[in-house]
């Protein structure tokens, strides 16, 4: 018996000293943080030899900036999530992340188990798979059904003209507007306005030709979207500033958002949520009514950094998390974001979430949700789109067509 205790003691000592300590950075989103803390504490109980330390990406402006600064400082974590495809391409370019396909069959086994054979193809950078996609959020419009009903509507507006018409009945400048058109001034907000509208108008066509490194959105679709945004500001259907939470306070009738808002909104504005109607983004008037409307997919994944002390251990952890379907169930419970799996609608494990009409709407939009262009200079490109496309439109500096052509020229300068 004594021997046993000594042995145990020694084992504990060895394990504590030999334990690999890995640092994991989660997205700066409280709901995702909660999920990871729960899963990681379970893992740490099961595996005293590989301890994971979880903390949130210390972002004062954006996750990408925080991660890049940390890489520059040599204080990057071992693993982090919240990586979009373009950022992964940039990280791969500077050699900061480790290709997961280096784990060979272990990686492919995980891909099969989590049913993402096709999904990972969209994340291929220079022939390698650096990212394990976690979720894919289609962007949908939320409309205030209660207010629309008062105005005599029984469905949300579908086309640009319908929005102008609705606006004429509702908008009262400086008090209330029909919808939020521009998502914000950060570079990532372009995903949620111009790029989303462009995907909707064009039936999911690319706005940047990643192969030829050329912006192609100065076509008929881009022009229609540009004119729409311009007209919305010019005719005062919307405004530059809308205040905090304008949607819930009835300042606007509609806005675009992702599923991450569902749980938060249900808690914070329980009186509004039952009356919210979900719809795809608005389309040009000539877009066929019987065709599905495409939208943008906000999709993020997880990477292992090149400086990770024990990449094998890191991958073991990742495999453990993502080969268990229950973890994806917990993920949906916490975040309401559709996991990046191909069996979302068919797998019985997720059936219970289909009763939530919000989650269902998002899950059903997944097939029509297109990820962003896979280019390594996404941030610069979208900063340029902000400066040369969105902001001139907001402040009515010039004609839509000229603004669009100029924006494409500026973006091409960056891509070239």
């Amino acid at each position: 018996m004594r021997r046993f205790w000594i042995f145990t003691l020694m084992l504990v000592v060895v394990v504590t000293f030999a334990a690999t300590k890995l640092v994991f950075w989660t997205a700066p989103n409280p709901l995702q943080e909660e999920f990871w803390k729960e899963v990681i504490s379970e893992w740490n109980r099961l595996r005293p030899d590989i301890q994971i330390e979880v903390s949130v990406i210390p972002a004062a402006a954006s996750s990408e900036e925080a991660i890049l600064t940390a890489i520059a400082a040599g204080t990057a974590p071992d693993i982090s999530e919240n990586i979009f495809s373009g950022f992964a391409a940039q990280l791969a370019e500077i050699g900061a992340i480790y290709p997961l396909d280096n784990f060979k069959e272990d990686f492919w086994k995980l891909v099969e188990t989590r049913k993402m054979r096709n999904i990972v193809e969209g994340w291929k950078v220079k022939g390698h798979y650096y990212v394990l996609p976690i979720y894919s959020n289609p962007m949908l419009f939320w409309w205030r059904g209660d207010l629309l009903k008062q105005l005599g509507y029984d469905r949300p507006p579908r086309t640009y003209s319908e929005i102008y018409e609705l606006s004429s009945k509702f908008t009262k400048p400086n008090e209330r507007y029909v919808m939020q058109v521009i998502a914000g001034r950060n570079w990532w907000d372009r995903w949620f306005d111009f790029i989303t509208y462009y995907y909707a108008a064009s039936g999911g066509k690319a706005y940047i030709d990643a192969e030829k490194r050329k912006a192609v959105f100065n076509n008929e679709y881009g022009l229609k979207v540009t004119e729409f945004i311009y007209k919305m500001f010019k005719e005062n259907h919307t405004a530059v500033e809308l205040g905090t939470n304008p949607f819930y306070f009835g300042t606007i009738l509609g806005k675009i958002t992702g599923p991450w808002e569902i749980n938060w909104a249900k808690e914070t504005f329980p009186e509004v949520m039952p009356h919210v109607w979900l719809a795809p983004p608005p389309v040009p008037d000539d877009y066929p009514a019987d065709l599905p409307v495409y939208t943008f997919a906000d999709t993020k994944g997880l990477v292992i950094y090149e400086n990770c002390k024990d990449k094998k251990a890191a991958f073991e952890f990742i495999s453990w998390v993502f080969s268990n379907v229950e973890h994806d169930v917990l993920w949906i419970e916490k975040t309401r974001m559709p996991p990046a799996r191909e069996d979302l609608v068919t797998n019985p494990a997720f059936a219970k979430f289909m009763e939530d009409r919000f989650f269902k709407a998002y899950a059903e939009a997944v097939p029509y949700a297109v990820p962003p262009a896979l280019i390594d200079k996404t941030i610069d490109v979208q900063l340029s789109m902000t400066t040369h496309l969105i902001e001139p439109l907001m402040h009515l500096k010039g004609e839509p067509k000229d603004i669009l052509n100029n924006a494409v020229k500026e973006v091409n300068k960056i891509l070239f």
Partner: protein
Amino acid sequence: MKRFRIADLIFHVIMVLLAFVWIYPYLWLFISSFKPAKEIFTTFIPSRFTLEHYEFIFFMSGRLGRPFARALLNSIFVASTVTFSVVMTSAFVGFVLAKIRFLLARTVLNFILYQMLFPGFMFLIPLFMLIRALGLMNSYSALILPGLMSSWGAFMFAQSFKTIPDDYIDAAKLDGASRFWIVLRLMLPLTRSTASIVGLFTFIGAWDNFLWPLMVIKDYNKMPLAVLLATFNHEYAGYVGPIFAGAVLQTIPMVLIFLLLRKYFLQGISLSLR
């Protein structure tokens, strides 16, 4: 004594009103941090005062991985260490520069004048490289070491020590006083306003420093309050109450130390003219 005129009265009323306009933002921030979340943007005098935002900052935020209480202590620790060190070292360097006549002292004084031509922001990135090379990223050392000494402080002390007659020092020397004693017990008390100015500005500079810790600290436990507040403001933009409470915490020490040293502050402003 002039007659008190109506115009004079109006003028004084306007100035006092202006003074209130100037402190209004502070008052609004301060009162708002005690308002229930819903009333922050709607009323100036709330229906009730609440400590919930401060409770959140001190007790809840740690569980969210945003240790505000710790960040406050970090800031206090870093700012006071740097301030203490700068005042002490500057006094000694200033003493040598002003009172010991030899070639090196003159050269250093000239060098300091030359050095002041280079704005600090030029060195941020190379200094970042240095801290990285020394392996000091994510450590208090990264915040403290570069600021342990200050050329500006040494210069300020040298300027004011020059005005003290050498007789004082000679008299002390005849009494057998050591040079450390002379600097600490004789010179420093005589130049209290310089010491306060150097201390006040160093403290404010260290407390308010944002860009540098933003670059070198990525660990929530080591963050000074300014950086933690900025990250929190970014991630939890909806939590206006706690953000305001954090902003109040960030402001209070600076205002306190200013109010304590205000007399010297006013004296010191005329120094910056010379």
